[in-house]
């Protein structure tokens, strides 16, 4: 008897659930079904200065889309979760997006470590993921990254841009000084591997540890080898110390840095030692200098104007641009999507559409995806920038 009662209750509950589910379906059909996209960003934690503008950018785009009637009449909703820049937290949030929120695609996360941690999850769940993090490994080997794309430039592209510039200047003998942490070590490997392709010899290979307070000894060693240029691969604080120490040692060798110094903090930190430093970065930094003939000019100007209207003068940065590109990939795919697909079909459709993107003009560059290239950033997307009198200036 007891058993029977349990069954009756269970069946009653299930019937009720189905009925409620059915009702919600019918009520949504009257309007248009909301397209739900997930996002995971480092809104707090060590990478929050990158994650916050990404979240701000996504909110701005969603408001713009919905104010203009949504995507083919469907409202767009982006569910943003904070990863706290922790791989574990990021994985938890991605699980929630996939299983509870039932989103069609996931954009983010902000950092390479977080991004690499969720590749297996999104691949197993068969959901498209467009990462906003730097590492090349996020989209390579591409056979194992069927569901994963990314929008920021890679270290390799930044190195290539510097080497092309050095080759054009006829500089063949350089010294490198790199951070032993992940970012610097990855840059060092590429600098060493690619040097010969551009006829460049590395005379001295110095390194330092994150948090070191002086690089004078390494620079003294470098001076002994008499290079034509010095390439420093580190984040902004250590790069600023290198610049200040070179000024102290009265070294006038040209200093090239990574795209890691692409923020005003480097200029205020290094003071006038920043002048003359050359580095590759997205064109957003120097949008005023970009000629009207550049394909990105219009998109960059519009994004900067929109973002700064909402969040204040001088707040725009390249990191928000990575999220702009990522969300727009998904929007392009959703615009092409026909009605009536179930979630799994919609996810597969979005993935296929993103892989076919051709000549998309974004913030970080112009993108043409293919099954063999899930970044698809075309050459010329990065600009070489020189700091002159504390201002970024484009070196054509």
């Amino acid at each position, binding site marked *: 008897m007891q058993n029977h009662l349990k069954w009756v209750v269970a069946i009653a509950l299930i019937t009720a659930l189905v009925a409620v589910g059915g009702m919600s379906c019918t009520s949504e059909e009257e309007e248009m079904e909301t397209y739900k996209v997930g996002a995971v960003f480092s809104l707090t934690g*060590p990478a*929050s*200065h990158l994650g916050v503008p990404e979240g701000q950018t996504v909110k701005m785009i969603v408001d713009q889309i919905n104010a203009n009637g949504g995507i083919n009449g469907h409202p767009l909703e982006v569910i943003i979760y904070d990863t706290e820049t922790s791989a574990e937290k990021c994985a938890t949030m991605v699980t929630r997006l996939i299983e509870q929120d039932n989103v069609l695609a996931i954009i983010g996360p902000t950092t390479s470590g977080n991004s690499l941690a969720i590749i297996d999850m999104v691949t197993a769940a068969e959901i498209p993921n467009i990462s906003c993090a730097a590492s090349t490994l996020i989209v390579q080997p591409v056979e194992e990254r069927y569901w994963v794309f990314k929008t920021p430039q890679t270290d390799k592209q930044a190195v290539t841009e510097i080497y092309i510039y050095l080759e054009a200047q006829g500089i063949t003998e350089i010294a490198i000084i790199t951070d032993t942490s992940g970012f610097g070590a990855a840059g060092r490997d590429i600098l060493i591997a690619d040097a010969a392709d551009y006829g460049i010899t590395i005379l001295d*290979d*110095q*390194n330092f*540890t*994150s*948090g*070191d*307070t*002086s690089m*004078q*000894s*390494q620079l*003294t*060693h470098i*001076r*002994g080898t008499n290079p034509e240029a010095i390439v420093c691969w580190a984040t*902004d*604080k250590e790069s*600023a*110390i290198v610049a*200040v120490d070179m*000024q*102290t*040692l*009265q070294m006038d060798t040209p200093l090239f840095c990574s795209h890691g110094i692409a923020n005003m*903090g480097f200029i*205020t*930190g290094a*003071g*006038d030692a920043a002048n003359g430093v050359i580095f590759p970065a997205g064109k957003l930094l120097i949008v005023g200098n970009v000629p009207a003939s550049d394909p990105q000019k219009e998109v960059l100007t519009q994004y900067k104007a929109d973002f700064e209207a909402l969040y204040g003068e001088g707040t725009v940065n390249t990191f928000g641009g990575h999220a702009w590109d990522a969300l727009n990939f998904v929007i392009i795919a959703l615009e092409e999507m026909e009605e009536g697909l179930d979630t799994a079909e919609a996810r597969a459709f979005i993935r296929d559409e993103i892989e076919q993107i051709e000549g998309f003009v974004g913030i970080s560059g112009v993108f043409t995806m293919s099954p063999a290239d899930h970044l698809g950033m075309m050459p010329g997307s990065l600009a070489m920038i020189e700091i002159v009198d504390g201002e970024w200036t484009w070196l054509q």
Partner: protein
Amino acid sequence: MSADQFVQYLISGLTQGSIYALVGLGFTIIYAVTRIINFAQGEFVMLGGMLSFTLAISAGLHLVPALLLSVLIATAMGAIMYLLAIRTAKRASAVSLIILTIGAAIFIRGIAGELWGVDFVRPPFFTGRESISFLGAYIHPQALWIIGTTIVVTILLHLFLSYTMVGKALKACAISPRAAGLVGIDAKAMALIAFAIAAALGAIGGVVMAPLTLTAYNVGVMLGLKGFVAASIGGFKNPLATVAGGIVLGIVESLAVGVDWGPFTSSYKDAIALVVLLLILILRSGRLAAEERES
């Protein structure tokens, strides 16, 4: 290694070593008086630097009052940290108290990260930025300030410990806490003074180095580690030995970059510093154990 380079390595090493010495002094004072290793020492260096930036740049104070105020605030925070975190733990063992200081360090760093954000900053240089030529090498004016401050602070600390009543009482606690208690020295008051002095020393180091080394909410970790090594080399008892330890560490690190003997390149810089530390610890371990039994 040319002669010019050698002089440059020495000068750079001396500058770095002076920084390590200033951080290390704080470790030594607290350890000598309380037998606690204060792993929050690096955080007071950070506080000194960050406060001097806030007061001198953001609040627009004149440099001298900004520096003095930074050191004063950090000193007060050192005393507060002792009163809130250490004294309240009452009869906890030294090891538990050391773990408490690690907690305090994480707490201070977390608050600083929230208050100041994660970006690095640079307070103004004390006097210009044109480096000075010296025997074929160059030295930054701020580096002269760092070295000079270390010398003055060391001398003042030595005079304080040798010729004032409070200083002598601190020294008595360092030599034998039990005997000091027997002659009526208040060990708790001495511990409070030791924490305040250590915080002041850290903050002085912080304000004087920050214009050259830049500062951020998280610089305390690495500097604390280097200061700890300096204090270990000095044996945690004698301020003069700690200063010597810091300078030796700085110069060894700097010269290690210049080493080019076969497979030993500058990549071994940190390893060389660690080997020096290990050697010293091995040599000292017997003596430290003996001292431990005495007290």
